[in-house]
Every structure is written in structure tokens, then in C-alpha cells.
């Protein structure tokens, strides 16, 4: 999925590069905050220097290593993690973007994997889109679902599942604007999303299992599940009792927390259903050129090629050959992306208000210390 040079034209590659650079700049600041508030006893609380470089570096090395871990599917085929969703859930979206971007950068420079001019495109689709979509969806679901470990696993599954085709959608969009060949975008989208939904299933299963494994041992290390900490216990006369919650760790106002949750559920469900249905019927009527292709029997061959030769067929499952179905899926994913983007804007606006007092800290890039 690493796009090579010449796949996307120069202006769009450059624009994607600018976008990627901006995202990395924002993430460099965000990661500092993310990795610092994990400060745990004995591990760096009050140590007095930035933990971003070593921690993000090690997580990047982990992502790099885990991409080499083969998950056998059947009959000699195997799949492996892409890692964007996993990184976002485990260490947070900013650090996630940084880690995956660094992995992509080094893959391009050291292994010639993915073109240098396509680096912006690759970072945008594989680092930015996957982590942001996965994290937003994950947080949304964790808020909506009951507070338990199973919910975290389920949320990881859905987040990872959607993140992969979402990245394919973004790639298709980039291709639609800056593709160097005139291909029916509908067709590209169908093929890309179809294949990636299948890859997404594999990604989702592995991500959910991995997050589940971490949360079973070190729940405090799962960034996306911070709210799930067990209550402290006190040993009173040999029996364990719940410690009274300290004011700052207590949930702010339970009632206020519940109403946005309901809004979340309602919004998410309606938009997903709507998008699913609308795209399902919209894609039922293929446009003229696709029909021509179908009449010539080219469509058939093309689909076969797409699954047989594509490296993305790692998971070894057949394509979603129902155009309607994949169209519907694309719609659902599209809405997912939109919801995420909307929420992002909302958060950004809300954050601005609190950002003022932090500004002095973030504006000094090097010297921040605890």
C-alpha cells in the first residue's frame, strides 16, 4: 500500500506533503503532552525532561517490529498489522501519528519502500487517516459503551476495522484529484474499499486481541482506556474494601456525562444507517462507462486481477463482488470519516478556550519540563 513515485501527480503530492508536515508539527506538540501525563510513580514523575523522544522512538520500533509478525490465515497465506489503529489506541493519536510517520519515513529512506515524493501521500493515508479515524471512533465508542474491558476490546475492533478502509477512501480521494491515469473513480473506490474492508477485518481482529492482551496486564498503558482504572482497594481487617474516591479522580458530574453520550449514540447510529442505505441504492445504478466495461467483460477480469495479484490480498479472502454492498460500505466509512472530522473540529474549537494558559508552555519547543 506504500504508494511509489509517479502514482499521484506533483501538485497533489506536494499538497499531501504539506498536510503531512502540518500534522507532524501538531503531533510533535501533542505527543509531548500525551506521553507526559502518563507519568507514573517511579517511571519518570518529576524527572524533569521530555519523554517524547525515547518513548515514541521505542513505540515506533515496536510498530516496525510488529509489522513483521505474521498472522497465518489459511493455506500458506498470512497477514500482518499495519499498526495505525493499534498505535493510536495504545499511546494516543498524536504519538500514533508520529510513530507511524517515522516508520514510513525510514521505510522510504532505508528500504526504498514507498516513493520519496509520495511520502506525503503515504503519511496522510497510512499514518494520519488511520490513527485519527481509529482514535476518534474508539473514544466515541468507549464513551457510548458500558465501562468494561470487553467494551474496550470491541471498540478497538471497530476502530481498526474502519480505519483501514478509511485510509483507502482517502487514498482514492487523492487519486481522484491527482491520479496520473484516467480511471473511473467509482471503480477505484470500489476495488480499494472492497479489498481494504477485508484487510480491515484482519487488522481489527489482531488489534483488538493485542489491545486486550495489554489491558489484561497493564491497563494503565492503554492510552485510550484511561477512564477504566480499577478503584483502589483498602485492606480493612483482612478484607478488601473500595477506597473512597478522592475528589479529583471522581467523575465530574455523572448526569452531564450521560447526556452527550446519548447524543453520540443517536448521531452515530443515524448517520451510519443513512449513509449505508443511501450509498447502497446510489451504487445500484452503475454509471455509463462502468456499464460499458461490464458489457465487454472487462469488469469481470479486472476484479479477478485485483484480488489475485494485489499485495493487499494478504489475508487471502475473496473480493466483495457485490458492487452494491461495497458501495454501501464505502458510504458507511465515508460517514465515519465525516463524523470524525466534525468531532475533530468541535474538539479543536473547545480546546482553544483552554489552550491559552498552555500556550506559554507549548511555544518553547525544547525547554518544557515538569
Amino acid at each position, binding site marked *: 500500500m506504500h504508494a*511509489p513515485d*509517479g502514482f499521484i501527480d506533483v501538485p497533489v503530492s506536494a499538497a499531501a506533503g504539506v498536510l503531512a508536515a502540518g500534522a507532524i508539527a501538531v503531533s510533535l506538540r501533542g505527543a509531548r503532552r500525551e506521553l507526559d501525563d502518563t507519568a507514573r510513580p517511579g517511571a519518570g514523575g518529576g524527572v524533569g525532561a521530555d*519523554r517524547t523522544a525515547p518513548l515514541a522512538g521505542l513505540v515506533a520500533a515496536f510498530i516496525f517490529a510488529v509489522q513483521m509478525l505474521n498472522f497465518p490465515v489459511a493455506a500458506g497465506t498470512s497477514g500482518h498489522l499495519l499498526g495505525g489503529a493499534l498505535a493510536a489506541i495504545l499511546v494516543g493519536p498524536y504519538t500514533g501519528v508520529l510513530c507511524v510517520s517515522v516508520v514510513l519515513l525510514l521505510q522510504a529512506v532505508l*528500504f526504498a519502500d514507498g516513493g520519496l515524493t509520495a511520502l506525503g501521500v503515504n503519511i496522510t493515508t497510512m499514518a494520519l487517516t488511520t490513527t485519527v479515524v481509529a482514535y476518534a471512533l474508539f473514544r466515541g465508542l468507549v464513551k457510548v459503551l458500558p465501562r468494561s474491558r470487553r467494551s474496550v476490546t470491541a471498540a478497538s475492533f471497530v476502530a481498526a476495522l474502519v480505519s483501514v478502509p478509511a485510509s483507502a477512501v482517502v487514498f482514492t480521494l487523492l487519486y481522484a484529484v491527482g491520479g*496520473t491515469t484516467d480511471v473511473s473513480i467509482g471503480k477505484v473506490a470500489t476495488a480499494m474499499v472492497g479489498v481494504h474492508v477485508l484487510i480491515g477485518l484482519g487488522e481489527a481482529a489482531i488489534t483488538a486481541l493485542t489491545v486486550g492482551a495489554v489491558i489484561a496486564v497493564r491497563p494503565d498503558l492503554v492510552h485510550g482506556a484511561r477512564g477504566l482504572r480499577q478503584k483502589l482497594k483498602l485492606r480493612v481487617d483482612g478484607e478488601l474494601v473500595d477506597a473512597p474516591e478522592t475528589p479529583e479522580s471522581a467523575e465530574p458530574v455523572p448526569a452531564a456525562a450521560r447526556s452527550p453520550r446519548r447524543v453520540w449514540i443517536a448521531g452515530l447510529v443515524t448517520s451510519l444507517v443513512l449513509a449505508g442505505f443511501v450509498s447502497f441504492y446510489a451504487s445500484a445504478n452503475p454509471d455509463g462507462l462502468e456499464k460499458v466495461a461490464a458489457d465487454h467483460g472487462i469488469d469481470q477480469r479486472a476484479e479477478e486481477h485485483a484480488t489475485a495479484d*494485489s499485495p493487499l490480498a494478504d489475508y487471502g479472502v475473496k473480493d466483495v463482488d457485490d458492487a452494491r454492498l461495497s458501495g454501501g460500505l464505502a458510504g458507511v466509512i465515508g460517514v465515519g470519516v465525516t463524523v470524525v472530522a466534525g468531532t475533530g473540529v468541535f474538539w479543536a474549537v473547545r480546546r482553544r478556550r483552554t489552550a491559552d494558559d498552555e500556550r506559554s508552555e507549548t511555544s518553547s519547543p525544547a525547554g518544557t519540563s515538569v
Partner: protein
Amino acid sequence: MGAGHTHRLHRHGDSPVHALPPHTKLAAVLAFVIVVVSTPREAMWAFAAYAVLLGVVAYAARVPAGFLLKRLLIEVPFVAFAVLLPFVAEGERVDVLGLSLSVNGLWGAWNVLAKGTLGVAASVLLAATTELRELLHGLQRLRLPPLLVQIASFMVRYGDVITDEMRRMRIARESRGFEARGIRHWGVLAKSAGALFIRSYERGERVHLAMVSRGYTGVMPVIDEVTASRAQWSYALALPCAALVVCLLGWTL
């Protein structure tokens, strides 16, 4: 996608290309690839000229052709895509051996193949002639955010350590008779991945302590200053400049 990552591309050597400062090489390769990508696809001879230019560099760097060609295999997925293009692209069609192919698609396939191959070849030459840590120095000199370079250098330093841990876990699994054969074994593999994450993160914390103990305050001290003379710059930039001439000719002819 994943198979090639363990392969180290660097070839030790003392050719003039090896000796160039890393940031000049990085800049040269990037500029070269940009020029290649901007070349109109109809100027087929231009791509041949680019290939000759790279051939000259490979000769100067004493990188054997076989090595270079083998590494081009990383491109295979996109060859598959390129093969597909003439079938699915739109516009005017021609009949070749009874197949109806899109002219536009044929051009598109050529475009992706030619530019992609040249891009990979240029990157392979860069990686083959530049050591890992030199590349990092080069990225730093090219004004990448220092924090990003630090993250990258930690990744490079600990990539092997963590891959090794992963290998040891696999051996431990196999020693106990476990062999992953299908989806039902994913749980066990994922547990390993989870354990690997915890170890990596905790190691990150310990590394941070070790750094702080030696006076780290958030900025990496400068130990090696890589500098390039004007001659070295002009030597390195000869490649993209020659390519630019070819490209301009390609546009005007």
C-alpha cells in the same frame, strides 16, 4: 509489504558516492525524483536518459547491477496495478491481441512503471551507499524537526533489540510446541504482540531515565557536525541537475 523490511540495503564501500555527506545525497535523490515525476510521460527517451544517469551513479558507487535489480522487486505490487490499468482506464481504446485496451491506461501504466522504478532505484542507491546513522544525520541537517530525528534514531537503535525480543518469544512459543497455523491461533500471537508492546514501552521509560541521568534536558547534544563543501554539493547535485536538463528537453521537444 512486510517481507522486505528486514533486508539491510547498505553496502559497505569507499566509493566517491559513499564518501559524500549524507544530506547532499538525500537532497540530490529527492530533487532527482521530483524531476523524474514532473517529466511528461510521452517523453519516453527522457526516462531512458534518467536510467542511464542512475546507471552512471551505480557504476561510480560500485553497486552491482544484480543487487540493484533484486531490490527493485519491492515494486512488484505496483507492477500488478500497472498491468491492470489498460483494462480499467477510460477513453479511446485499441485492440491488442484481441483485448480491448485503453490508450490512456497504457500511458498510465507506463507512467507508473517508469517513474516508480526510477524512484525505487534512486532510493536503493541512496540506501546502499549511506549508513543508517549517517542518513539520520543527513535528515537532521536538512532541517527535519530535531524531535522527529530523535524518534527516528531511537527507532533505528532499538528496532533490532525489539525484533530480537520478538524472535526470542517465537522460539519460546515453538519450544513449547506451539505453531501458529491459522486464525484460531491469533490470540496467542496477539498476546506476544501485547507483551512486546509492554516491554518496548517500559524500555522506553528506562532509556529515558538513563538519558536524564546523563544530563538530557530535551535537546540532543550535537556530537557530530556533518558539513559539506561546495565541491561536494556540486558533485551530489550533478545528478538532479543533469536530470533537470533532460526534463526540460522533455517538455520542449
